[in-house]
């Protein structure tokens, strides 16, 4: 029961939010109430997640399986849920002002966010294929709608349709892989599948097919090359807060699924999915970094940067030892913080008369909003991986893990791309500091955006200088390799 409580809470609050919309109240009021409901629901769910953590601690177990084997409480799930719930809270905070400006402040939006979060909850905690797929689909569908939420904007419509079509295809391929696994194991529970797969012949074509199709679906969700084509368009067209949320929460949840499916369950056939991941990781870092160099639109730039970061996380999975998994967890936490912070700034850029989507919209920000610019610089340094920020710690751990497991060439490639990526991150710094402002229109900030930006940049710097508590937590979680 405890395992389901966060999800129940989220669904309940989401339903209330939907009803707020239906009862015919003025949109502005219902929107605001829905946002507050959403925050309350997320906070409550987070509370329950912490309860789960202490429950697990009190039992002195590292995982507990409930609901007839469908849902599990373990370290990976707890961490992922903490990250995605935090991301949802920040998302709700920053989207309010944006939606008001674009006159789409529907209560339904916040409900969708809560439902998406429910889907992500199940993505992170399910130990059984059907629940997992339900979670993935719930998340995806809510995102399809959120991406196209600003109906008046043609770009948003285009982005939503592209994302929907490609997402549906990848889900179909993914489901096919699931059906093959079910066929092998006779059960949809991940434990049973792990058992069945380990008993098959080493190069069983069915297993290979299953692994390949599942990888395809999963890599689509984390926008790994060559399944990344949807990302730049989707991010560019979507409302900016949604792009940020998509970039952080659904990616983190998808990585949780990768960990659970590939690293934990399909461990026996590591030799099949390792080469796939290596190729995708290298390609993702390359395409992401190089394509971002020439981008003029901010959200596209961050889409490519997210692709590159996905590549780095994959490197941690490829390393696969305790340091590697610890690095993955650390990187996901850090990545969530810095990307959300960056998107908060992007959200504030969209103000009266200015769409705030091009690089040139950042011009002169250092002079007009010095504190915002300084915080953005900290976040950009973290994204590039420069000490003393948290982003450096994340990359450092991945590097450490790669060297520990002998992947020297991958370590070299990853390091080289750190330098290249700095160039496009500093193009943003250049626009802010080295160019004069072109408009006197102030940033569209609200209490929420300022809180979000302050919290994320402060944490980024703090974790960078005093990382020990986070590292220790990651170490404990990583030791649990089921």
């Amino acid at each position, binding site marked *: 029961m405890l395992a389901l409580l966060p999800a129940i809470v989220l669904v309940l609050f989401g339903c209330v939010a939907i009803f707020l919309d239906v009862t015919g109240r003025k949109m502005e009021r219902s929107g605001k109430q829905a946002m507050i409901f959403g925050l309350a629901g997320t906070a409550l769910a987070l509370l329950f997640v912490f309860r789960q953590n202490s429950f697990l601690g009190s039992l002195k177990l590292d995982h507990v399986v409930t609901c007839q084997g469908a849902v599990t409480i373990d370290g990976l799930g707890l961490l992922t849920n903490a990250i995605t719930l935090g991301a949802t809270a920040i998302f709700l905070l920053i989207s309010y002002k944006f939606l008001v400006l674009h006159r789409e402040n529907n209560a339904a939006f916040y409900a969708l966010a809560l439902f998406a979060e429910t889907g992500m909850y199940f993505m992170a905690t399910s130990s059984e294929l059907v629940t997992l797929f339900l979670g993935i689909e719930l998340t995806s569908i809510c995102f399809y709608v959120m991406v196209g939420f600003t109906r008046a904007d043609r770009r948003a419509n285009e982005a939503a349709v592209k994302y929907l079509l490609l997402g549906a295809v990848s889900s179909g391929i993914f489901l096919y892989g699931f059906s093959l696994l079910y066929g092998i194991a006779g059960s949809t529970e991940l434990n049973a599948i792990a058992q069945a797969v380990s008993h098959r012949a080493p190069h069983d074509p069915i297993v290979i097919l299953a692994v390949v199709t599942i990888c395809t679906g999963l890599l689509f969700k984390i926008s790994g090359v060559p399944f990344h084509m949807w990302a730049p368009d989707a991010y560019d067209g979507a409302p900016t807060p949604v792009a940020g949320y998509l970039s952080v929460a659904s990616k983190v949840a998808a990585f949780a699924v990768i960990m659970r499916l590939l690293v934990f369950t399909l461990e026996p056939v590591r030799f099949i999915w390792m080469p796939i991941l290596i190729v995708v990781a290298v390609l993702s870092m390359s395409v992401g970094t190089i394509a971002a160099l020439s981008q003029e639109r901010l959200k596209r730039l961050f889409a490519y940067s997210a692709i590159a970061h996905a590549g780095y996380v994959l490197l941690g999975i490829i390393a696969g030892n305790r340091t590697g998994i610890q690095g993955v967890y650390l990187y996901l936490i850090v990545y969530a913080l810095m990307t959300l912070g960056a998107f908060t700034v992007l959200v504030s850029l969209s103000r009266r008369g200015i769409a705030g989507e091009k690089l040139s919209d950042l011009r002169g920000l250092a002079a007009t909003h010095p504190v915002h610019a300084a915080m953005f610089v900290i976040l950009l*340094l973290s994204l590039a991986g420069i*000490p003393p920020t948290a982003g450096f710690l994340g990359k450092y751990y991945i*590097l450490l893990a790669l060297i520990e497991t002998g992947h020297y060439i991958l370590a*070299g490639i990853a390091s080289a791309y750190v*330098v290249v990526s700095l*160039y496009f991150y500093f193009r943003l710094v250049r626009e802010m*500091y080295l160019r004069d402002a072109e408009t006197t229109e102030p940033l569209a900030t609200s209490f929420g955006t300022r809180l979000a930006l302050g919290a994320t940049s402060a944490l980024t710097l703090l974790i960078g200088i005093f*990382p020990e508590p986070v590292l220790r937590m990651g170490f404990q979680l990583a030791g649990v390799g089921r």
Partner: protein
Amino acid sequence: MPPHLLTLILFLPVAGMFVLLALPSSKQKFHFIWANIVSLSTLLLSMVLASQFSTAREGFQFVDRVSWIPSIGAQYLIGIDGISLLMVLLTTLITALAIFCSYRSITSRTKLYYAMLLLLETGVLGVFLSLDLFLFYLFWDLVLIPMYFIIGIYGGERRSYAAIKFFLYTLLGSVFMLLGFLALYFAYGSRTGDYTFDIEKLLTLNLSPGMEQWIFFALFLGFAVKIPMFPFHTWLPDAHTEAPTAGSVLLAGLLLKMGTYGFLRFSLPLLPKASTQPWIVHLMVTLSLIAIIYGALVCLTQRDWKRLIAYSSVSHLGFCTLGIFALNVHGLEGSVIQQVNHGITTGLLFLIVGFIYERRHTREISEFGGLARSMPLYATVFAIAVFASAGLPLLNGFIGEFTILSGAFGANRAWAVVGVIGLILGAAYLLWLYQRTMLGSVRHEENRNLRDLLWDERLVVAPLLVLIFFIGLYPTPLFNVLDRPVKQILGRIHTSVQPAALPQSLSIDGDQR
């Protein structure tokens, strides 16, 4: 004596920066005054440090050790020996002067400017004080951030290009340096089970020559870009020329020394077999000699005054690296002394260019001529700087260059011969510069009524002039401070190598001065 003196010195500038950031943006005078208070206090503390420093004790002094990231074996570990003491003194002095000299030239966005200068000071001090490799790497990269802003916002025409080129180039080198550090970390950890970045523990490592050579090159990439050694020097002319005066002074005076310091503190002691490999030594020396000669020759072709001085840094640092890889007492001592000298002298030269730029807003050498008539005091100071840079006896440059050449001669006569040719070329481009700008008739009317040095300009150059003469006439304190650490480094190099494997020309003791 205050406890934790080094930590206080290290963090005072950045603490001052936070106070500065809280001041209102419009009160520019306050920014200037506060920045000066902070930098002068740091300078004072470093002089207290110097007075308490003992030349008789082995190893590192004033060590501060705090557990920082046990999960990865990184500690907050700082300390000084003779070499880093001189670097710290140089840092606090040059930064104080750089902050003071910005009074006239920086008139807008002053808060950010002085904040970046203070952050830079902490970064550079951290590099010279760190005894933990991870902490060292953190400060090494930290330095790049304020320097980017200083060049990029307050610099010349091509400042944006110069700033990002500097950042990317140095970052690429430092990433490879990190990989080298990680290799040492893993080597030590896999042998003892203790994964740490503590330099004193890593000094007990005994690696295979092949392994050491790989790590040497990884570290080399990081240090060589910083120094800069040929052929990694192409970022320097742009960065130095486009930076504001204070930026150039700090770049040339301090940041370049970070690279040579890295060789002395890390490459030589931690990788003794690689450092004494004949082919590596020959490679390093060859690159140094190329830097000396090539740097000097390029100087002869420069039309931009500031760019000429920038290339002269390449040439001078070539002498410093030559001294290091002579691998004897004179070589190393001369190298460190010359590093200090270069900071003083080239810092002075950049200040001088800055003064004239304030007046005429051009750096084209052809625009000048006969300035000695209208600015006699300026011409005198410039003359002293030129002669010090060229290595005239009685001034500081001579001490450094003579000692280095003495060491080089002891290692291999041919090296010293090429080095001397470099000295002659150095005198050539410096004196020719002086002649074209200061002497002769006044070719351009604008130069006729320029104001001589103002009171703040005189104040800024005075300490440098005093040091130029002091070190030139009485360098003994510097030699005393350097004696023990240099002998310790050399002792480490030579005990790790079998006597039979020593190249014929290496010797520990040069002639006693």
